[in-house]
């Protein structure tokens, strides 16, 4: 039986007159790790931004836990947003706040917890990503990898059911990137968090992804969906098999 936590239905994604994707439909099951993949400019980040309600699609819908993030407003939208967490390519931590204050922020805004409880929760979330020793540091005082991990901790502050990660490995060295993969797997296994990840990193994809949604710029939509291994070995498209093997298409 399907246990879809996210349903993307016939979505048209783009900016104003520039349609980047159309007729996109797929589901993400609870506790699944789905990677959105495709060549540069195919609309991966755009799709993600429509899925989290940052952009309003000209057509189609995105349901999270059965509720439309596209049409929700006010408290209903607030409830949906609190059930998801997002980390951006740059980390998007607030530069004037310490890592602990960054993680505390959603707690301050949406809970009535006492201050010491929020401090403890912030520290616990940071310890989940291995940053308990840096609670008092400003984002500018820690490395890029640490900023990405702190952003994940902030995204987890309100215990979301889904985490959306936009290029989590961008700009990280292979070791730090591999550590981030292990963190994603650990959070998925221990807390059952569903992940939707936009990334180009093939090693990461083979490590973490249950399924890959492969986008195609030419058809402005989904070319194929499957496990990384299925796409690599059995895809009906030669370019996808080559993409997944990181091979260059012969001229």
């Amino acid at each position, binding site marked *: 039986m399907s246990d879809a936590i996210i349903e993307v239905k016939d979505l048209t994604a783009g900016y104003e007159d520039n349609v980047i994707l159309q007729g996109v439909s797929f589901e993400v099951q609870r506790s699944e790790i789905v990677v959105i993949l495709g060549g540069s400019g195919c609309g991966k980040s755009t799709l993600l931004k429509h899925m989290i309600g940052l952009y309003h699609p000209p057509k189609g819908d995105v349901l999270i836990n059965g509720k439309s993030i596209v049409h929700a407003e006010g408290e209903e939208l607030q409830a949906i947003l609190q059930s998801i967490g*997002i980390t951006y390519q740059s980390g998007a931590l607030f530069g004037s706040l310490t890592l602990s204050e960054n993680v505390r922020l*959603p707690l301050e805004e949406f809970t009535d917890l006492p201050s010491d409880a929020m401090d403890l929760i912030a520290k616990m979330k940071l310890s989940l990503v291995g940053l308990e020793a840096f609670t008092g540091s400003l984002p500018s005082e820690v490395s890029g990898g640490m900023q990405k991990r702190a952003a994940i901790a902030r995204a987890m502050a309100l215990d979301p059911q889904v985490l959306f990660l936009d290029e989590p490995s961008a700009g990280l060295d292979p070791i730090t990137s591999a550590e981030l993969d292990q963190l994603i797997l650990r959070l998925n296994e221990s807390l059952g968090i569903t992940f939707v990840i936009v990334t180009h990193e093939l090693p990461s994809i083979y490590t973490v992804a249950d399924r890959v949604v492969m986008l195609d710029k030419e058809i402005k939509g989904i070319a194929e969906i499957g496990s990384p291994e299925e796409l690599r070995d059995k895809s009906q498209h030669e370019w996808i098999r080559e993409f997944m093997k990181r091979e260059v298409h012969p001229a």
Partner: protein
Amino acid sequence: MPVETKEEASYRQEGGVVHLSGRLDAEGSARLWRTIFQRSHKKRDAVKSIDASGLTYCDGAGIALLFALSRQTKASIDHLAPEFQKLLDQFSSDSFDRPVDPPRKISAIEKLGMGGAEFGRDLYDQVVFLGRMSVVSVRTFFRPSLVRWGDVWRIFEKAGVNAVGIVGMIGFLMGLIMAFQSAIPLKQFGVDIFVINLVALAMFRELGAIMTAILLAGRSGSAFAAEIGTMKVNEELNALKTMGIDDARFLVAPRMIAGIIATPLLSIYANLMGLLGGFIVMMSFGFPFAALYRQVTANVEISDILSGLIKSVVFGVLVAGIGCLRGLQTRSGATAVGDSTTRAVVSGIVLIVITDAIFAVIFYVLNF
């Protein structure tokens, strides 16, 4: 006669064959380029092939020379070493010959229309922003805990307390200059005691508020635009939005509250410093302090002080509001934050002057 470079790239033409040899790097290509094309142009029909067998090295510039030469003369390139041939094969004449669409020319009328549309959009944005801030004001009035008071005091310190020095200095110098400039003509009529009235009324009714507001527009309005603009470029505003946090309440409200508190206080301080400047000048002319004090207290009414204060509160809203709005409107790209900062200062000053003119008319009509 062969043309040679110091890197030994050389060129010679024998019949229909151009012979290239030596090291065809950027330096060698630069030396040969003009000569080769002048000659091949003159003998265009004569060049049948390019013999590259003598080339010992060829970088990007050398490949460009070969490519351009073969395109112009339609001659074949023969005996090019395989490693250089691979480099050359990456480029096809077809893709370079394809016409590129020239950028569309925009007529003056279109530019005027686009400017008008841009102005209209900006006006619309300002009205929407005003509406959002009104909603936030009402909500925070009934629930003050929604305001991040820690941020309010931090911003107040930066925008207000740290501006005390510059506001005080400019206020003092304005009072001083006004007193000096007006003392000479008024002395001719023997009414130079009224100089202090002029300084006091001008500072309290007009100059204290407007000068403070313009200083804050340059100092704090720009800072607000830059801070929020950088947050937008760094996706921090997206992060706020997807956390369900209203950026108007989280970022704009603390800055506007800080602006509303700081501007009148700084304005009063500027008035007093201007008065001090006037007093010093007048005392240097031999007027006793007591006489000047009596002159001021007898002629400056509470309505004069209030009119300046009312204006300074409105100016505080305008400076902080436009600074935040320009920050929120920041587009992407390296120059975006700089553009927002400039727009914040220019719009801030223009709005201050327009609002001041409106106030002048209102106060005149109300006889205030």
